[in-house]
């Protein structure tokens, strides 16, 4: 978590999923775009919504709600896509509502607290307590791990034709 306080100076980009506020390190965020048409990609997990054309670049978009097993909701005017830059690859994440940049103090940050069973602990790097609210800081690396995204059907072994 040194990264958060050294490089990002404790700055988070926070957003809502349902009523809960989540945050990602500011340095991981590239830009925010409004909801746009997403072209589905077959053989991918349910949270992988597909790909968008971001000024000529094709980038995958995932739905955090589905990823976190929250019920799906139709997009509203507030729904937006945060483009994150992760390991040289851009990925879009769909969130319900963008709040903005929040700065947190190291003392108010608590690393990976105990979670109830319905949320996966590896997605969370910690919780930040602010005056009036609590922000869940995401561990994007685990949320976006490429392995989980493609669901290739198991067929018989390949044979050369």
């Amino acid at each position, binding site marked *: 978590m040194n990264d958060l306080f050294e490089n990002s100076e404790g700055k988070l980009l926070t957003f809502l999923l349902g009523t809960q506020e989540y945050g990602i390190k500011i340095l991981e965020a590239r830009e925010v775009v409004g909801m746009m048409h997403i072209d589905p990609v077959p053989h991918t997990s349910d949270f992988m919504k597909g790909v968008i054309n971001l000024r000529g670049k*094709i980038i995958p978009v995932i739905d955090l709600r589905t990823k976190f097993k929250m019920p799906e909701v139709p997009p509203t005017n507030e729904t937006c896509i945060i483009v994150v830059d992760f390991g040289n690859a851009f990925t879009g994440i769909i969130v319900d509502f963008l709040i903005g940049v929040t700065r947190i103090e190291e003392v108010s940050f608590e690393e990976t607290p105990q979670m109830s069973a319905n949320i996966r602990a590896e997605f969370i790097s910690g919780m930040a307590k602010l005056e009036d609210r609590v922000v869940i800081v995401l561990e994007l690396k685990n949320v976006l791990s*490429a392995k989980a995204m493609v669901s290739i059907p198991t067929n018989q072994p390949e*044979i050369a034709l």
Partner: protein
Amino acid sequence: MMDAEQQNQIQIKRDALNMDVMSLRPEHFQDLAHVGAILTELEEFASLMDGFGQPQFSKILKELGHRLGQIVAELSPYESGLEEFQQIHEQFDNALELLYAGDQEDAEKILIHALDSKSTALKNLESQDHYSNYAEIIQHCTEEMKGDETLAEFIGETEEGLQKAEETLLRLEEDFEDQKAISSIFRVFHTIKGTAGFLGLSELGSLAHRTEDLMVQVNEGEREITLEILNAILCATDGLSKLISQMKAMIAGMNSEVQLIGGHSLRYLPHISEVEPVDLREAYQLLDHLLSDEVSKSTQVSENPTPETISATPPTHSEEQKTLTETHPEAGQNLTNTSKSSTTTEVAKTNENVAATQVMDMLKIPAFKLDELSEFIGEMVVALSVLSQNPTIANLEDRELHDRLDQLNKITEQLRDRILSIRMFPVKNVFSKLTRQMRDLSKKSGKQVKLTIQGDETLVDKTIIDSIYAPLMHIMRNTVDHGIETPEERKAVGKPQEGTVQLSAHHLGDSILIEVRDDGRGLDRQKLLSKALERGLISERENLTDQQIFMFIFTSGVSTAKEVTDISGRGVGMDVVKREVEKLRGKISVETETGKGTAFLIKLPLTTSIIEGLVVRLGENRFVIPILDVHLTLIPKKDQLYDVQDRESECLILAGEVIPIMRLHEFFDVEADVMVPEEAIIVVVKYGEKKYGLMVDELLHRQQIVVKNLGETFVNLPGITGGTILGDGRVGLILDPETLIHRSHNINMTIN
């Protein structure tokens, strides 16, 4: 004569050293503390011997320490380095025995012999710098050259120069009298020597210098060119190339974890495991042998260098033309003939003229700038087609507007073609490297093989040039090793003793076809079949065509070589070749006839970034099928469709051929408008000899598309090879018929 006390002291050290050397194993080199202890011992022993007035003994102990250090630093290979180390140690031990016996003279003789022995042992003492001086290179990389373009430039120039030298050497092999070639080679090494000296890269410089020395003699007519000389120079060229690629690797992986080994006088050394030490000894030996070998010099040693061979001839008109043709091979083809005929009369030219002209005509541009340019132009083409397809614009009845748009379209297309052509280079670059390899291969295998080359002026994209060498090399290796028979076998079946391998390239519509054709024994159908059975790739009953069986050669683990040689035969390789070719969006196939020969055919797109695609709709989804893969499209008639087992309309009969139908919506698990083939449109795609019918809802249009990578997230997505931005700005996925077919469920077909 030494006293008992001295002998006792020596004996203690000797015993300790003997123990250590005897127990030294390659794996000990991982343990720096262990080696460090031996190094300390050697150093103490050396100063002890110095103290007893035995400088020779001290010297050899230091040498032992030096050697050990080299092994630790991965400058010498473990096995042979250790062996040599032990040999020297044995000599030392023998000498010590003699010293005990009071035979100082003989003892020193042994030591001197050990130190001087040219062949194995201590050639290294004088040539320690010849054995790949890493520290030097690294020192430069880290201290001065980080971010310095001089080094990068030097590397680029030297690579270019060496490749040119290699090509020229091979030409010289055909014609020893080619004075122009000789002076061109001379100049390459001269330049390398000079620049290396300037940059302080003494390792490179000294090898180049030695080579230059030899070339001076040839250039000045002091000696005749011989095969031996050519070999020595080729060997030196190899050595220099290796050093250069090592430098590149080091600059690339500058993660110099600096290790100080055992606190000893070893230099700071980087730990770069991928880099193998370069052994320059063979090159030096060949060169030194020739340079010291006065006998082989031609008898008429001229006192003065013949002035006309090196005097500068002013650049002639034809020379300029020649340079022009070299720089613009595609533009100057018709010039070549005239310039050739007029240059024949001129004996020798200095390359300064050539170099000067080239500097004026050529610009060196970092490759990424071109890549950016081609990406932008791709975007522009797409953006323009989005604009043209815009309904508001399309419905406007403004004639002038449409004319202007058409014009803009045309200009953009021309611009794109021009930009793409900048990236095009003749395959010659690759072919000439292969020529060189072929020479070595045929020597190594003991077979006589002649390589003929056709169409090496064919232009292809730089990406292809960069990636096609390795696969071609692999095919060549296989060809020489398995395809071509031994001279005896060839004689027995009435073929000429010398085998022929034909390497050719030519354009075929929108693609380029590269062929490697040999006149060897051909593929063994039966053996491939039994290997495939053995590996469970097919079942006994399957009825396969010859072509299908021969394609097994591209399957991992199937090698028909009876025994594994150091050239090939491990059964890995041809599958890698196939993968590499496919990465370039190419196809590979094989034709073979028993006893007559085999041909590998590689079909590659002219450029890898823009392809012609057919855009199809499947429900909400749009897919692009590369035109190259499309055989035809049709709306099937009822009587063309046949049921298979309990499934209706499983295949299509087209001109007597059974074509399985693939329901794309099922494969991709997406919603489609049309669920039955009778109402759908079928796109018949071809993969190798097989045809498949893909069921789609609608054909939208045909368009040029910029192929984009879908990124790490979607690697190995079955059936899909990439994405593109379509005319309306949305994303279309590019279908990959090959993985589609492989993954499809219908493999065994029987008609009800």
